[in-house]
């Protein structure tokens, strides 16, 4: 397989990921010595197994799977934050932003400073982002709190700011980790869905992890189902959901079904 830069924004080939877990805390010098003496009990956990996938520019791709199946590891591998084991290859083009509740925000800085910092890292000039700042802060409905430190923000306020930055700032790849669940009040949720329905995400490549099958069905053009580290690709989201429900979830109402019911 060769990477087609003109069309593919992400290409993953023969990528596996194994984490080594020690029962004894290994981050310290003491822990290292403890394990070097053979007193620790290392365990290898295969988080992803021989993944091969490509994501084209402009695609809206979904990732579904049970908790602990390897979805977040796959997301980190797509962004390049986690490297595969030897022999695997990951190639990503351009900038990315990962939308999660913490995002790239520093709680000690104000919304204005965080927006400037994040946009600058994403490759936007400061003059342009200063011009756009009012639009971003308006969209996030945070005008009175633009110069308030983020540590005083509620979870919903932070999520709105993160969403506004991701939508307004031009990035090549938008990675969303259960984002709709944390956006906050119903009003903003509607606004966020409106963004997806209208043209603001046009030409953006989006990868969305979600337990909400309605969201997956509505927006994704392709879906990856992750189960015990193995990734299956489906061109039709309904087929993916069907496969997930029958082959992986079974008929039991587990935590994923519950979250789906709570977050329609």
């Amino acid at each position, binding site marked *: 397989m060769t990477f087609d830069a003109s069309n593919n924004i992400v290409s993953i080939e023969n990528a596996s990921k194994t984490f080594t877990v020690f029962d004894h805390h290994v981050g310290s010098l003491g822990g290292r010595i403890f394990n070097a003496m053979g007193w620790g009990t290392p365990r290898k956990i295969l988080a992803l197994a021989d993944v091969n996938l490509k994501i084209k520019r402009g695609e809206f791709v979904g990732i579904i799977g049970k908790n602990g199946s390897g979805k977040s590891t796959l997301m980190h591998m797509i*962004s390049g*934050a986690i490297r595969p084991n030897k022999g695997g290859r990951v190639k990503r083009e351009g900038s990315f*932003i990962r939308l999660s509740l913490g995002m*790239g925000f520093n709680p000690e800085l104000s919304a204005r400073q965080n927006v400037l*910092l994040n946009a600058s*890292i994403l*490759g936007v000039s400061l003059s342009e*982002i200063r011009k756009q700042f009012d639009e971003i802060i308006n969209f996030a409905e945070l005008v009175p709190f633009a110069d308030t430190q983020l540590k005083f923000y509620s979870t919903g306020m932070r999520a709105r700011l993160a969403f506004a930055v991701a939508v*307004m700032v031009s990035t090549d790849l938008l990675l969303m980790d259960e984002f709709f669940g944390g956006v906050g009040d119903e009003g903003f949720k509607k606004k966020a869905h409106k963004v997806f329905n209208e043209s603001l995400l046009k030409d953006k490549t989006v990868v969305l992890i979600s337990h909400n099958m309605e969201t997956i069905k509505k927006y994704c053009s392709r879906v990856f189902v992750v189960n015990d580290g193995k990734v299956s690709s489906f061109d039709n989201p309904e087929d993916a959901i069907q496969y997930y429900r029958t082959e992986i979830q079974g008929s039991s109402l587990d935590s994923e079904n519950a979250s789906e019911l709570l977050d329609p």
Partner: protein
Amino acid sequence: MTNPQNHSKLKLRLERIGMLASTEYYQRYYGSSLGVVWAFLNPLFRILIYYLAFSYLIFRNRDPQFILYLFLGIAIWQYFSENTNRGVTLLKGKKYLIQNVGMAKSDIFLASALSTSVSFILNVFIYWLISFGFDVEYSISSILVLALFANLFLIVIGVSMILSTIHLYFSDFKHVWDISLLLGFWTVPIIWDSTYVYTTYPFMLYGNPITGILINLRNVMLYNTQMDWTVFALDFAYGLVFLSIGYFLLNRFSYKVVERA
């Protein structure tokens, strides 16, 4: 929508590093009530305490210029220790950016060193003003202070990259570095007479680049004499070696910052 293509990549990168550096500077000083004044007060108080202790309590009959001698020593050491001490935890501290926005890791180190450089340059400026009261003479060769500063800048970035990568694997490494800095303070001729380095402890001159930089800095900023060019060349080589090793380690192992808690 913004279009990053309109700006040159270099300009955008410089803006990004400047933005990170100013954010660091802001966080360090503006959270406290005296704010940026601490950037001057901290080294000034240190110098005053050491001066009083060594000039009146320990040695008594000291050269009046001893305060300038101390000033340069403490300014250099403070810059090195503050940078490297922050450098140890820099990767872990910026994990939120590396993980979520794909931050270029080397820019983090550049920005951190730049933000500390502001205080260092201001301290050197204060030294320059004070030095006129002690009849210090300057010549055109005093401009070489910039080359010494560039050398120090390379060293702190390289060492910080090395330490920060090691810290990903050994979380209590910060304590080891704290002790190393304490030891370093007394092995560099900050307080004691640097002529001993040439006569009694020459290995310190060639084995520790901070010693060489300090001796050369005093040559151009205090004694108005020529730099020791052999020492300068060796220290610059140290800087390049530290930077190369640090950059290699950063690229090779820093992805662990996302994998490790």
